[in-house]
């Protein structure tokens, strides 16, 4: 323990604590900008500087440990002047077009400038630090706005392990954060997860915009079907209702319907089908040898990660398409040949996914939650008008009311649930997970957990893997241990789709309170035990398709993968 005085309050704190955390523990907030707890404690921006008695220079609170008897001032005039000076410098090299910026009112940089009352010359649309624009099918970067905080680099390296973004400081006076120079994000091995976008305190990194495309589509007489994941619906409802106690998810559907889509569907039917397809793959595995693991492919970023960096594991991926792709194909091939399909998701990687050759023509655009919110603003939609009639006609009849096999937010549990019902004729016992890598209380850095379960005569071993860095660790573990798993639920975002690259920005990305709440809410309106095989999915299979894994089904619901290359310098 060490004694330390902050702004006149003397407290005892654990040795090794940073000044920032010591201050926080007594309710004193020190502003930060480049800092992400335990991920980016690099001291680049100098916004968190404080005065320490006996020190000539100001020190950064985020990465300076306290020492015994330290006397700290966090808001002296000297400190405030310094913060303002640094912010002014950063602002002078930033192009301001806030009203038109992808950060769209959720900008941390803007907020901190405002909090510090920053005034400087050349305010107004300036030139910015550099004028390069880096393209990508999922992620784009506008260099005019970069403040060189390095947060994105930390996340892309340590959480995602894709190592696309780099802080290039060969020319110290003019460093630049970017993918490999002259190349696009895709060429440099980006998986589209969008975690860098969530980490960026400015509008420098953003998810490729499809709003204009969709708005154009809606002007056309051709019907445009929207299909929305449950996560997206939940988050849109959250945004519409500002986290009121009971978020009404249906409101997301009715608000979107007002935008002029011919139908607004969920993707539950397709999700059910994905479960059924994976169950059939799992059964095949159980009957025909278990020397390879079966790994889910419901996350396009995890698939891309495997194709790029671990292609020796491609034959372990389930060939089932992602639910929104499967459903789009189903709509276009079977139900309504003319329709255009727009997926509304919390995922940015789906924008890259839709450009895959194997999935050509499946969906016509992907909107993230953030883009939908932008469209709602564009249209001045009445957010108060609840419960608009959302009669979706024949598509609804064919594609809604499903959700038989989605009692859990975890795909692995839904697959096992169905397997258990098929083999043992009873619902799945709750699984007991053991965390084998990462830390669930710090889920924003990803986690690997495993569980064992007995179904029929089979002793099954399954795993849940979240976050690119953990995917990498997991593959490595498979390689050195020769272990295999019966089902691996693998996703690239640290907390799955509830934390996808297309979700609203949280200033403190290590706090996952919001995400926890989201998961709780999502679980609320699905009931694990509820199971009625008579509806939708079953009907759909019977009417339009053969049994799972039949030829017909293969073309509609299955896809293939191949090794991909990237260039890193």
């Amino acid at each position, binding site marked *: 323990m060490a004694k330390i005085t902050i702004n006149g309050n003397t407290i005892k704190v654990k040795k090794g604590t940073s000044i920032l955390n010591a201050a926080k523990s007594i309710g004193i907030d020190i502003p930060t900008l480049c800092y992400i707890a335990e991920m980016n404690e690099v001291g680049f921006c*100098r916004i968190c500087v404080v005065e320490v008695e006996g020190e000539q220079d100001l020190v950064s609170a985020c990465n300076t440990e306290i020492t015994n008897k330290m006397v700290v001032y966090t808001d002296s005039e000297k400190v405030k002047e310094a913060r303002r000076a640094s912010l002014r410098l950063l602002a002078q090299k930033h192009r301001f077009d806030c009203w038109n910026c992808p950060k769209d009112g959720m900008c941390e940089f803007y907020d901190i400038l405002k909090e510090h009352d920053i005034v400087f010359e050349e305010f107004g649309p300036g030139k910015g630090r550099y004028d390069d624009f880096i393209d990508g099918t999922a992620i784009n970067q506008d260099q005019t706005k970069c403040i*060189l905080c390095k947060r994105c680099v930390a996340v892309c390296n340590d959480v995602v392990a894709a190592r696309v973004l780099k802080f290039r400081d060969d020319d110290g006076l003019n460093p630049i954060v970017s993918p490999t120079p002259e190349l696009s994000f895709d060429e440099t091995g980006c998986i589209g997860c969008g975690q860098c976008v969530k980490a960026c305190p400015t509008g420098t990194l953003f998810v490729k915009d499809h709003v204009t495309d969709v708005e154009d589509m809606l002007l056309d007489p051709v019907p445009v079907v929207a299909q929305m994941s449950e996560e997206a619906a939940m988050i849109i409802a959250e945004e519409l209702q500002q986290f009121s106690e009971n978020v009404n998810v249906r409101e997301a559907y009715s608000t979107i319907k007002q935008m002029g889509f011919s139908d607004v569907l969920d993707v539950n039917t397709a999700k059910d089908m994905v479960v059924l397809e994976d169950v059939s793959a799992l059964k095949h595995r159980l009957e025909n040898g278990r020397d390879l693991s079966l790994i889910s492919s419901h996350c396009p970023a995890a698939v891309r990660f495997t194709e790029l960096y671990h292609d020796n594991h491609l034959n372990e991926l389930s060939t089932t398409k992602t639910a929104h792709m499967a459903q789009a194909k189903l709509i276009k091939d079977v139900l309504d040949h003319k329709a255009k399909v727009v997926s509304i998701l919390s995922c940015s990687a789906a924008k890259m996914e839709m450009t895959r050759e194997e999935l050509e023509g499946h969906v016509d655009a992907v909107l993230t939650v953030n883009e939908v919110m932008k469209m709602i603003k564009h249209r001045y939609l009445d957010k108060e008008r609840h419960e608009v009639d959302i009669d979706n006609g024949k598509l609804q009849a064919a594609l809604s009311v499903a959700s038989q096999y989605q009692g859990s937010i975890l795909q692995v549990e839904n697959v096992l649930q169905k397997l258990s019902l098929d083999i043992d004729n009873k619902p799945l016992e709750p699984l007991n997970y053991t965390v084998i890598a990462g830390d669930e209380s710090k889920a924003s850095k990803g986690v690997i957990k495993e569980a064992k379960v007995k179904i029929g005569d089979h002793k099954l071993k399954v795993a849940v893997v979240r976050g690119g860095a953990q995917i990498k660790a997991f593959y490595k573990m498979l390689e050195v241990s020769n272990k295999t798993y019966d089902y691996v639920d693998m996703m690239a975002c640290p907390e799955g789709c509830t934390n996808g690259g297309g979700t609203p920005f949280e200033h403190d990305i290590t706090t996952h309170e919001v995400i926890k709440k989201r998961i709780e809410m999502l679980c609320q309106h699905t009931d694990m035990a509820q199971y009625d095989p008579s509806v939708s999915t079953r009907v759909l299979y019977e009417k339009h398709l053969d049994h799972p894994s039949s030829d017909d089904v293969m073309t509609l619901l299955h896809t293939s993968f191949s090794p991909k290359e990237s260039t890193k310098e």
Partner: protein
Amino acid sequence: MKESQVVNELFEKWIEDAKTKLNEDNFFLKINEYLESTHPEICGKCAPCRDGVPRLEALLKEYKEGNATLKTLKEIEDIVNNLRSSRCSVGLDIGKNMEVVLENNYHLLYNPVKKY
């Protein structure tokens, strides 16, 4: 002798003899030479130094071009003070040196702008 060494020696002299005064022409030239000589050392990681030094240069240029005002001087002071919140000794040293320069030659910076 490398140019930066010459400049550093000059600084040592300034620091030793707080009374050293420079004439105007010489002053802006020397300061610019000094700041330029720091460029290769700047690592680019922290804002006060990476963005502060070029901004200082731009502000001094305003003096040379006769466009400086009291605001220019104020900003120079702010940037110099803020160099003391840099991340490493490169920026901190530039800050210390520039503080001495400001102290000893304030008249050269103040006289041209006091009318504003």
